[in-house]
């Protein structure tokens, strides 16, 4: 691998070592690839499953209905994905080009520029792009000979298409994964639901990890009375049955994706907080922390530059498991009917449609979304395990 030759002159950081150990397992590499596949599904969903063609010729003129019909959110997501990808490329290049001491500054500048591009781009897109409702049925136009030269996405159905003529159909040539109660294509909904699961996983865990680190760092570093009172607070939050709280809150507030993410995020930070606290309690007594305190390094730098990176391993592992837990919670909520309301697609909600009110069992509506949930959660768990092993190679032998 090229990574072995990169830092001939410079030392290898703990992060790089961990990364190499992580990738040295084929299972981990495979799961990471699968995750990348899921990410691309989520980003490219409207290009993969859409009832609008990319290109169509109507009355001798070229039209691009798919691109016209994309909403600003889709464009913003694509922009974010492009910026994100370029960040990854740039970070890899930084490792080769910059000494470690300079790298941190370069990286933070890069991330800042990336964030600014995404935010400005999103604002611009939302401001400039008019909302268009395109109700034209391009397929009948093609079938009736009104239009020609149409290129449709691989799955030529939108996630919110309803077609009462083709309800509850088992998998077929037209609908690879069958159709649901209202005649929507299951595969199209499955692909679009990837977005929901990602959003829930990342945002909820992002919120909970941020709160957890802040609380845990404070409690662990200052210890003593602060820690005692804080931990009682954490225990109170831990005692709340999250799932029922979520159900209750969803009953009072609109069942939007944002609300669900917020509730999961705001209640699941206790685990991270406890982990970070215990690491900080342990690390603050270590000589190197005492040494930087002694030299007079500012508190912010002590906490987040010297201690936190040493405590990040369990946090990352916990976050990975947290993502799968959040996806699971969302699926469970939607399955019970407390989650996202149709037509917004969600795996759990599709799963619940497997058994109809009439009592018949539609196996394709159970199997495919179920498999999607299973594989995604499994992938995150394997990655979490892999990270844990990579962070501490000793565990690999004992486990």
């Amino acid at each position, binding site marked *: 691998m090229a990574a072995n030759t990169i830092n001939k002159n410079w030392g290898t950081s703990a992060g790089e070592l961990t990364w190499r150990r992580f990738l040295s397992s084929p299972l981990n590499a495979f799961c990471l690839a699968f995750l990348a596949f899921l990410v691309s599904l989520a980003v490219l969903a409207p290009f993969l499953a859409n009832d609008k063609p990319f290109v169509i010729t109507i009355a001798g003129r070229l039209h691009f209905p798919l691109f016209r019909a994309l909403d600003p959110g889709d464009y913003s997501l694509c922009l974010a994905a492009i910026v994100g990808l370029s960040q990854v490329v740039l970070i890899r290049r930084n490792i080769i080009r910059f000494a470690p*001491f300079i790298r941190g500054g370069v990286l933070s500048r890069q991330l800042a520029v990336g964030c600014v591009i995404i935010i400005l781009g999103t604002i611009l897109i939302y401001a400039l792009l008019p909302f268009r409702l395109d109700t034209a049925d391009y397929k009948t136009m093609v079938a009736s000979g009104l239009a020609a030269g149409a290129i449709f996405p691989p799955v030529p159905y939108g996630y919110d298409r309803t077609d009462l003529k083709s309800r509850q159909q088992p998998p077929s040539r037209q609908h690879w994964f069958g159709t649901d109660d209202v005649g929507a294509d299951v595969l199209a909904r499955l692909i679009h639901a990837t977005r929901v699961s990602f959003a829930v996983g990342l945002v909820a865990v992002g919120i909970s990890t941020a709160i957890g680190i802040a609380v845990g760092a404070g409690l662990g570093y200052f210890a003593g009375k602060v820690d005692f009172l804080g931990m009682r607070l954490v225990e109170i939050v831990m005692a709340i049955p999250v799932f029922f709280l979520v159900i209750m809150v969803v009953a009072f507030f609109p069942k939007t994706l944002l609300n669900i993410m917020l509730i999961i995020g705001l209640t699941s930070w206790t685990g991270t907080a406890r982990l970070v606290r215990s690491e900080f309690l342990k690390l603050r007594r270590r000589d190197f922390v005492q*040494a930087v305190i002694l030299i007079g390094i500012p508190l912010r730098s002590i906490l987040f530059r010297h201690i936190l990176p040493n405590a990040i391993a369990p946090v990352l592992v916990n976050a990975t498991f947290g993502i799968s837990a959040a996806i699971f919670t969302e699926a469970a909520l939607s399955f019970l009917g407390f989650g996202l309301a149709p037509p917004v697609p969600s795996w759990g909600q599709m799963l619940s449609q497997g058994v109809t009110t009439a009592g018949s069992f539609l196996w394709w509506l159970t199997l495919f979304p179920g498999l999607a949930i299973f594989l995604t959660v499994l992938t995150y768990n394997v990655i979490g395990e892999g990270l844990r092993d990579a962070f501490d190679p000793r565990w690999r032998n004992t486990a």
Partner: protein
Amino acid sequence: MTENHILLSTRNLTVGFSTDRGVFHAVDNVGFSVRQGRVFTIVGESGSGKTTTALAIMRLLASTRGRILSGQIFFEGRDLLALTEKQMCRIRGNKIAMIFQEPAAALNPILTVGSQIAEVITLHQAGPPKQAWLQAVEMLRTVEIPDPDKWARSYPHQLSGGMQQRVMIAIAISCRPSLLIADEPTAGLDATIGLTILNLLDRLRQRDDITVLLITHDLRLAVRRADDLAVMYASRIVEMGESRKIFAQPRHPYTQGLLSCSQTAGTSLRRIAAIPGTTADPLCYPTGCKFHPRCRLGSNDRLCQTLEPELRELEPDRWAACWHASGYEKHAS
């Protein structure tokens, strides 16, 4: 010896540790003066309170269970114990630096050596990170690390113990301190490497005019390096004075024992002289002189068994705490 030459002094310093079995005094009534530009060494065996004294001076006992029960610590005329934590931080960063026993533990494992030095440099002078980095590399050259440009970019675990200690010295010197506390700087190092480290410290001390408070258990090393010496036993200073004089004529039986131990170790292969008995248990110190159960003079002496001798000046700049020391006035005030 005039008052203004004294950089650091402690007076009646007592540090207590609270344990399950009660409070014990790890440092008991310790007073000494470190003069500007000299090397002051505290010698003692493990658990005699050397490191605790150093931590007390730095006011770093908060992370342990220890508390300063009484006494004063004067640094450049200011009582360190009366300062606020913020003022103390400024002193720690600028005036007093410390080198720890284990350099491997005192360096952050996830940051490069260079960036750890550079961070200290940026604390003391504003400037672009690039410049601080170059200065850090220069610092490594000062502490005689070969190929500093390369080693600045490596992580602590890639360095040998001696190099790690050199990096610690570089960090300490970067603060431009007037006092450097070196707590067993050679512990865990080869004898030869330890020697080169000490030589390096000596050169840097002379170059930057730094006063050194050296803490060690190795009396021979202490005698060779130190201008002034304090011997600690069981939380107390038992003998203090100019190291050459102590070496020539130790007054306290413990110092005599230590010196004979280290002298025979080098010359005779047949038998190493040792002080009989073991270190006193800090939670139940013997009554009277704490050294009397192991002492060849005092083990049968009523006075030694009942009354603890105080540290008294026998002659100018020559202190001891022993009833039998020549010149010790038994009935002084």
